[in-house]
């Protein structure tokens, strides 16, 4: 039987595209026919919920009843994956809370698959975030996501510094999200639909829409590139790990090797 999986998307800086990455992941999971539920921590009105209202609940991650709503139901829900879009500034407190409630330990024991998508900004401050985050990771699968929301270059001014930070988390894998043509991003935003729905030229209601063919083409190309990234890091294999593959207590879990290009 497949273990329940929790996918956390966060970053301590605002405006780095966390919700955009969460949206691409939801589209990817749907395409892979994975049952998924999502939690949007932008209370009271979530952005993720605007795009994926059917599977998303808005929660206050600092609020204990909401924490119970998410984590106490991980094993009982029909969804294989629980995706949590953590709003800016709350990644470290959320990880802290997860450690306190024993979630990190449960992941260590192999009861739960825990995947973290850490969305990095282009500044050195994001590298410091990596160090802070690493302290909580335990046995999580850690993806460092460079999200090119604009034409910024990531740390290219100092590769050595970049590499030094990456070394601190040996299992970390880099994922690159390319920039989407601005006008296409704006139109999807205006349409308030999942990327896949925009590509299919449909409204949230399922009715036919009249989005630009060119913009739909750009979104499709962009989403396919991102899906290829998720394929490359074998995200589905990670999320569909079986309970039977859980290692005996006291032995280290095998490390999933991910080929980087």
């Amino acid at each position, binding site marked *: 039987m497949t273990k329940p999986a929790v996918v956390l998307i966060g970053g301590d800086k605002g405006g780095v595209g966390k919700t955009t990455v969460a949206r691409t992941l939801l589209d990817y999971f749907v395409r892979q026919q994975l049952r998924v539920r999502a939690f949007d921590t932008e209370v009271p009105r979530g952005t993720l919920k605007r795009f994926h209202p059917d599977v998303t609940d808005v929660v206050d991650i600092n609020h204990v009843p909401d924490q119970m709503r998410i984590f106490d139901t991980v094993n009982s829900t029909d969804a294989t994956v629980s995706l949590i879009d953590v709003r800016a500034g709350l990644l470290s407190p959320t990880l802290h809370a997860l450690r306190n409630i024993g979630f990190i330990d449960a992941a260590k024991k192999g009861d739960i698959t825990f995947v973290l998508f850490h969305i990095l900004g282009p500044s050195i401050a994001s590298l410091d975030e990596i160090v802070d985050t690493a302290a909580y990771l335990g046995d999580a699968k850690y993806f460092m996501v460079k999200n090119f929301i604009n034409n910024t270059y990531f740390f290219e001014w100092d590769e050595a510094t970049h590499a030094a930070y990456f070394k601190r988390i040996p299992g970390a894998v880099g994922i690159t999200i390319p920039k989407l043509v601005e006008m296409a991003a704006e139109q999807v935003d205006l349409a308030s639909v999942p990327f896949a729905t925009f590509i299919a030229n449909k409204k949230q209601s399922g009715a036919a829409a009249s989005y*630009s063919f060119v913009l739909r*083409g750009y979104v499709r190309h962009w989403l396919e590139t991102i899906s290829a990234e998720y394929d490359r890091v074998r995200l589905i294999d990670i999320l569909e790990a079986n309970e039977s593959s859980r290692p005996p207590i006291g032995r280290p879990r095998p490390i999933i090797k991910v080929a980087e290009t």
Partner: protein
Amino acid sequence: MGPRLDAAKISRGQAHHVMTDKTTPLYVVCSPCRHVGKTLVSRLLTEFHVVNDQPVAAFDLADEGPQLADYLPEVTTIADISDTHGQMAFFDRLIADDVGARIIDLDRRVFNNFFTVAQKIRFFEEARHRSIEPLILFITDPDPKSAKAYAVLRNQLSQASLLPVRNQIEAADVPYGDAPSKVNRAPTSLDIPLLGFPLRALMDRQSFSFSQLWRGSPTDLPVSANHELSCWVECIFFQFRLLELLLGCA
């Protein structure tokens, strides 16, 4: 194997035609080189549809005159695909339902950008889905970059037919056997025959109209010259007609 109008692709077009009975052609007249006769071929194609009373929309992606819009302003739209806004205006209009035959005069400067964007947004695939049959008319030239560009297109285009055009007016000194090796053994091509210099000069006038000539409007040409030009146009229009039949658009 030399370039050709791919038989398999044409068959698909015919099959599609049978299903929908409303297939319309989309011609992309292109070359990565200058002064090879792109605008001349585009003019001829556009006027071929005009004389046959077929709806036609021409798109001018040139940025240096004289350009298609100078010759046929009534049916030509000037397009600029350098930014997303321009690409939307251009490609979205191309796949609109009510346009008729589409003819694109593709300037060498936008050659790469056009095919890059078209491939990225899967333009040709969408066109076929909408019963629009794309045909790339690639004007060959002795310049090595012409053969290179042709080879790239041939390898990358899976949803559009590709046909070399031998324009003997602009490359009269290049006999068939001397054309680039990838381009010269084509069993099928569109041939623009030689034409005397005075008649070329006449055609280059912006006031000149192939459709008026075709319809027998009086010209100030001597009878023999008028006959030569008419035969030249007829030869080309005959090839266009064959192309229409092959594409399933007739």
